[in-house]
């Protein structure tokens, strides 16, 4: 039966290719858009993953995402350290602040202050300088992408042309003099403002005066302790919000999805791909069935039951679906590789592949159901009609 089904399908080359191309196109639309969506949402939490030393993030209960600054009292740090299961806890400052580069260019940046003693919360990779250089007087570390973008010296210094900000350059941060001592490499983020790292004590000195200045407490749980349980204890003991890294990631992703509408936008495109897939597959399958109507009727007359024809068409649809899915995923993966090189968010996870496969499966089931009705209702007596 499988051989008969495939020979019938492959024998009609034009329709077979049409069906496979349609399904491949639908797969491409579904998986590529889903991969870009996944890439964007993952970028919303890049900063959390880059700060991999911490197990727990403690913050104000009204904080909604990574860039949402609702400072907490500095004594929160001691209270967190007093909770059972906490191995260490350090403060972190994070806030938008205005800087002026040496050539007079003014920018809004995100100033991140990390623990002076441990430097926990530092960027993951240093391209120039060392993270310990932050302990030098007035030291700051900038991001490699920012030095050629938001922190580029666009006006130039001393008559020279524009150039990237580099080690040794000075920056005015809220009227505080700072010197670049290193260039770090961080993961690409959903947010685009430049990031400048310094020590916590220096960051709060540079920041505008406020009663509360600490943005987060980063904590490590004791070996063997369950981060989720410790987070609950911290929340209960301090009255603050405490999340595991994954929990904070989910909170941030959820907020971005709710507020930006990217879920709806990508959802529409993914749905469009699905609809195109259903329409193309249904049209092609329907044409295939109509074209082979006499053959199916003859087979019915010769003793093919509806179950046999159901399996026959299912094999044909399944084969076309696998081919279309494979080609579509292949094109999506290759195009995604190049899109990623150009800086576009693209992340094809197993979830995306499963979504694409499920989408195409449903496409084909709907298309097959539409076409099979015709086959199942076919009167074998039509074979005697010239």
């Amino acid at each position: 039966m499988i051989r008969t089904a495939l020979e019938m399908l492959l024998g009609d080359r034009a329709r077979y290719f049409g069906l496979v191309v349609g399904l491949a196109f639908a797969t491409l639309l579904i998986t590529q858009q889903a991969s870009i969506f996944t890439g964007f949402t993952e970028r919303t939490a890049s900063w959390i993953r880059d700060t991999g030393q911490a197990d727990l993030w403690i913050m104000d209960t009204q904080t909604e995402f990574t860039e949402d600054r609702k400072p907490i009292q500095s004594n929160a740090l001691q209270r967190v350290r007093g909770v059972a299961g906490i191995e260490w806890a350090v403060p972190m400052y994070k806030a938008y602040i205005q800087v002026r580069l040496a050539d007079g260019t003014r920018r809004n940046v995100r100033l991140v202050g990390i623990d002076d003693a441990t430097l926990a919360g530092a960027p993951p990779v240093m391209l120039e300088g060392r993270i310990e250089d932050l302990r030098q007087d007035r030291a700051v570390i900038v991001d490699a992408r920012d030095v050629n973008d938001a922190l580029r010296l666009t006006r130039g210094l001393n008559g020279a042309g524009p150039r990237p900000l580099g080690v040794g350059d000075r920056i005015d941060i809220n009227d505080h003099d700072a010197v670049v001592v290193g260039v770090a490499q961080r993961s690409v983020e959903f947010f685009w403002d430049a990031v400048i790292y310094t020590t916590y004590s220096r960051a709060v000195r540079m920041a505008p005066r406020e009663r509360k200045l600490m943005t987060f407490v980063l904590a490590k749980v004791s070996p063997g302790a369950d981060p989720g349980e410790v987070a609950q204890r911290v929340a209960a003991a301090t009255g603050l919000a405490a999340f595991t890294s994954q929990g904070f990631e989910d909170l941030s992703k959820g907020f971005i999805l709710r507020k930006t509408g990217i879920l709806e936008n990508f959802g529409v495109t993914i749905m469009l791909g699905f609809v195109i897939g259903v329409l193309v597959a249904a049209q092609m399958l329907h044409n295939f069935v109509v074209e082979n109507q006499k053959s199916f009727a003859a087979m019915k007359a010769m003793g093919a039951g509806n179950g046999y024809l159901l399996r026959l068409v299912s094999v044909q649809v399944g084969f076309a679906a696998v081919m279309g899915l494979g080609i579509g995923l292949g094109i999506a993966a290759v195009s995604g590789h190049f899109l990623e090189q150009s800086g576009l968010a693209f992340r094809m996870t197993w979830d995306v592949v499963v979504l694409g496969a499920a989408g195409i499966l449903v496409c084909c089931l709907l298309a097959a159901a539409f076409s099979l009705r015709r086959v199942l209702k076919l009167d074998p007596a039509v074979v005697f009609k010239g």
Partner: protein
Amino acid sequence: MSAAVAIECRGLTRSFGSGETIVQALRGVDLQIHAGQVTLLVGPSGCGKTTLISILSGILRKDGGELRVFGENPENYTERQRTAWRAHNVGFVFQTLNLVPTLSVEHNVALPLILQGMATREAFARARAVLAALELADRAGIKPGKLSGGQQQRVAIARALVHEPRLLVCDEPTSALDAENGHRVMELLVSVGRRSNRALVVVTHDARIYSFADRILRMEDGRIVEDSSLVHQP
């Protein structure tokens, strides 16, 4: 008449549609067809020939009357049982042949065996044997569209015979062929149809093939109006 009765029907009726548009296709057909005979069913278009062979072959259900085919009454079977019964007992040669254009010749011929559940390899071997007997062995691997009309007709006959059916039903088997090819096809059908365990029923408008018949039944307005004497004894 010494040959066994293959098909027997009495008062067979069948209508299509309802109300004012009802069409009475069969108006009480009484008939006995003997095994080993070549029976031609002739008559003008719309006289009920196709309806009659559709009922005899278990494709259509009758409205009334009695029917027995090789001692069985397919009307008593469920749809699934009738389908299986057709697969094992009936061979068809359709007017438009209905060869599957995307399947090879041998695959077309093997179809009735595959539908019976035979393993593909064995079905293909038997199909090739039948094709060889019909001098089509060298055409086994190609698509039907590349064959001449006469060759396609022989492939259709091979497909109808491959599973050794007891009832062979042919609908206008020579209508698309010239005299020479039509003659050869009928010779072939007669040679396989005149077997003691098989009945051959041929629906035709083609007067050129009347000489091959053992018996000619003429239909008009849903009834058999003439039952000619036997031309040949089986």
